[in-house]
């Protein structure tokens, strides 16, 4: 581990021309990327892979919505056959969850930012980090195989016994999930160790940026929950290979046990998705309000609280699966308690904006959209956590709308906000802010148009995962489809804005937004070893010493 780059690479710029020398031009050639141990390059490779998966999942999503334009009461005349429809929505869900949203913030942005925010050279285990990336790629290959063989039609939840009988390529998909799980575990493990042992002098736990708290809490869940998913999908694969029967009622096995195992991971997994997004929002709110974060400790503690409470509520996915009455009541009550730390965060973000100097630029608009959408998503979760209402709403479009509000309106929107926020740092290029705001606006409108009607559909009884519906629902479904197209357009604009910046963007200054965390103290993009002079660790949310310099268009820290 003596050198970070492989011997096969060549250095093209010398370190003494400091500003020109950065991690992107440090060395070149395919192998200098494929074998890199640099967390920044690994983060960028993740970013590319994740955006590709998002695109793939998005294509399936549009296929679902186009299919549902018509009620399809006659399956023969429908655009997609019922069997194809099942495959399309399963692949959409599985790709979005396992390949995109779970690794999105931690593996892409987290990898890039975590060591820089800590003022270190790299994560604790750079090789393991690269290994995680290749595990992710292997998982992607398994899914690609699934896609080109018989697909998969079980729903992303792989419920038995159907997943045992299904003729589709369940084995490949479950092994893919198994491998992706280990990718996620190793990333989490790496981050926990890095934060524990590699913080710089002066950075106590409560001087850490809140993004790191969020990533830390996420990593705890990744390490504690994902192994259970691993063994569950492994047993499911064995169920298909050698018929072990543990989850197979035909062999006296118990499908409800499968659901318990699955949700023991997958409920905490929704916090793997949302916690890092919340971390992003904490940074965005404070930096773009130019005001210290309100209630730092409460936000930090609530991240950990969410991580721990999140392990106790998985049963709320199974209220109708046949559990003892007492069990359902306990799970319902516990579900309500997890919403408290989430609410704490929302209030703290609002408190941060209050009397701040709010800059309405692209990242901030996305952050505001997040607060709005996440709040709706979280509040509708309460309807589902309440036993009596969930009996009616379970397995309807209400659930679909709920989790899209939290996962897409929450995590994806925060991810985009974070991407815009750190884009100048990562690529060294400024994007067109007006066009960025336009993309955020289209995404926001398109998103609500897609999913608000689904709440209504759900309460009226439209079941999820159906390829056809009664005529009464057609108008709402069509609204939703139009919304999905708009949403797609908004994302396209966002993508074009970022692409455009790569080629025509102005050179990004060191600190374009006025942030006080350490990543804004190294050049954009950062040099190979992150810092050319030692950063002084201070309060990450002290904006009184951050000043704007009109000449360079950059903020800088006043030396005390």
């Amino acid at each position, binding site marked *: *581990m*003596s*050198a*970070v*780059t492989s011997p096969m690479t060549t*250095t093209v710029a*010398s*370190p*003494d021309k400091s500003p020109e020398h950065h991690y992107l031009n440090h060395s070149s050639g395919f192998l200098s990327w494929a074998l890199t141990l640099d967390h920044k390059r690994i983060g960028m490779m993740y970013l590319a892979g994740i955006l590709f998966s998002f695109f793939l999942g998005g294509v399936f999503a549009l296929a679902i919505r186009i299919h549902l334009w018509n009620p399809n009461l006659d399956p023969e005349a429908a655009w997609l056959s019922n069997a194809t429809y099942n495959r399309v929505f399963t692949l959409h869900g599985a790709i979005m969850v396992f390949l995109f949203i779970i690794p999105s913030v931690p593996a892409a942005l987290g990898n890039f930012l975590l060591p820089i925010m800590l003022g*270190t*050279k*790299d*994560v*604790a*285990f*750079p090789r393991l980090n690269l290994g995680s990336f290749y595990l992710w790629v292997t998982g992607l290959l398994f899914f690609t195989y699934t896609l080109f063989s018989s697909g998969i039609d079980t729903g992303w939840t792989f419920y038995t016994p159907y997943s045992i009988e299904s003729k589709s390529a369940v084995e490949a998909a479950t092994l893919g999930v198994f491998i992706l799980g280990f990718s996620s*575990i190793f990333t989490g*493990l*790496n981050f*926990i*160790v890095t934060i*524990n*042992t*590699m*913080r*710089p*002098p*002066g950075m*106590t*736990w409560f001087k850490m940026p809140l993004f790191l708290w969020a990533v830390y809490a996420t990593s705890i869940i990744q*390490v*504690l*929950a*994902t*192994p*259970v998913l691993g*063994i*569950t999908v*492994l*047993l499911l694969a*064995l169920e298909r290979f*050698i*018929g*072990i*029967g*543990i989850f*197979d*009622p*035909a*062999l*006296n*096995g*118990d499908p409800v*046990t499968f659901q318990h*195992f699955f949700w023991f991971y997958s409920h905490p997994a929704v916090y793997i998705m949302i916690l890092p997004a919340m971390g992003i929002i904490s940074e965005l709110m404070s930096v773009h309000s130019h005001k210290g974060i309100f209630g730092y400790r409460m936000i930090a503690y609530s991240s950990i609280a969410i991580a721990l409470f999140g392990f106790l509520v998985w049963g709320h996915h199974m209220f109708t699966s046949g559990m003892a009455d007492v069990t359902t009541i306990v799970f319902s009550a516990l579900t309500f308690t997890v919403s408290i730390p989430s609410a704490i965060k929302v209030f703290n973000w609002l408190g941060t904006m209050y009397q701040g100097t709010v800059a309405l630029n692209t990242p901030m608009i996305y952050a505001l959209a997040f607060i709005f959408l996440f709040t709706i998503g979280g509040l509708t979760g309460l309807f589902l956590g309440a036993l009596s209402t969930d009996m009616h709403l379970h397995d309807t479009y209400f659930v679909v709308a709920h989790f899209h509000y939290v996962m897409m309106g929450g995590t994806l929107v925060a991810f985009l906000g974070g991407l815009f926020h750190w884009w100048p740092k990562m690529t060294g290029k400024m994007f067109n802010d007006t066009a960025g705001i336009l993309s955020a606006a289209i995404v926001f409108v398109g998103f609500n148009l897609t999913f608000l009607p689904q709440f209504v559909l759900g309460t009226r009884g439209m079941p999820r995962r159906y390829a056809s519906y009664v005529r009464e629902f057609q108008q709402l479904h069509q609204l939703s489809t139009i919304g999905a197209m708009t949403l797609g357009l908004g994302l396209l604009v966002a993508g074009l804005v970022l692409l455009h910046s790569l080629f025509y963007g102005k050179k990004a200054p060191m600190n374009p937004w006025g942030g006080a965390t350490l990543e804004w103290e190294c050049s954009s993009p950062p040099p190979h*070893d992150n*810092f*050319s*002079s*030692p950063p002084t660790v201070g309060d990450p949310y002290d904006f009184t010493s951050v000043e704007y310099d009109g000449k360079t268009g950059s903020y800088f820290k006043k030396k005390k």
Partner: protein
Amino acid sequence: MKIESPRQQGRHPFPKFQKTMTEVAAPADGHGHDHHDHPSWLAHHFDDAEQQYDSGKLGMWLFLVTEVLFFSGMFCAYVLYRNRNPEVFEFCSAFLNEKLGAINTGVLLFSSLTMAWAVRASQLKQTKILVGMLGATLGCAAMFLGVKSVEYSHKWGIGLLPGRYYVAQVENAPHAETNYLQMLCVIPAILSAVFLLYYVYSLVIASKFHQRVAGPLLVSGLCFFAGVGLGNILEGGEHHDEHGAGSHAHDDAHGHAHADPLVQGVATAEKATVETADEGISFVKTSGGPVNDVAVTKEEEGIPNSKVNNQGMAGLFFSIYYCMTGVHAVHIIGGMLVITWLIVKASREEFHSEYFGPVDNVGLYWHLVDFIWIYLFPLLYLIT
């Protein structure tokens, strides 16, 4: 929550940034990043040996946590099914040979000792002892697998297979044609041959390093077959007698530790099924139920213990048995790979008092693998 990282305790006055400064000043030589004060065993992004060691240690502990959770899924399944069908577990565990289980427990416990000794030797830079102890650990692991191969192949031969493939046990059952044990021995045999060649080669070129590596590998190859031999004496002999007597009821004749499960099981199984039936949760009772559909077909009605001796009952036990012991065996094999890696490093004399983290951490992993077996043994073998 006030755990201070080593860097905060002021042990190092920012060495890394001093380095970066000199580096920037120095002319580029392709790789301006080799730090002269960084010994080769200290990774470039760590400040000092202690930080590197602490990171590795914490990483390993976290990994062990994930391992425990990984197994916990199967332990859960075990608890659920044992709780629901205790009579099945009693019936089935009688098919497991607790002598072989006990021997393997002893072998693994001993390997924990040698592993711990290896850690000490690496700290004291006693290369010979270190390589010897790692070799002994590797040998024990191989022996464990040898014994396990006998157990597995014997069970496969008489149809004690997981779930759907379980064959109801009857007296005078025909023996399988396939010799599973031979199949399991193919890879170890090839490996042993390779190790032998390697060892001869190392003697020929008189390389101390290669001898140190090849020796333990060859010994562990042989240990596998020692395990097979040992297992065969305890299980295979019994196997023959059965054949000779043409009956499963060999135990009385040989004063064997476990009574014939087919006979002994009747009482317990009958009793237990009635008990559970009273509580209305028996899966066996329901005549049109799934178990009867699958497992007990018309022709099989004559088999002994048909209520538990079927795919949905005994088969499920063996599913759990194979999953748990199989995943454990995979961990043993993984451990053997990393121990081999350690042997190579140790033979190069890489370890010393400031750098022994890899031995220490592999040791932790190895103890966990033993520890899991310590649970598996009584839970599976010692039920009756």
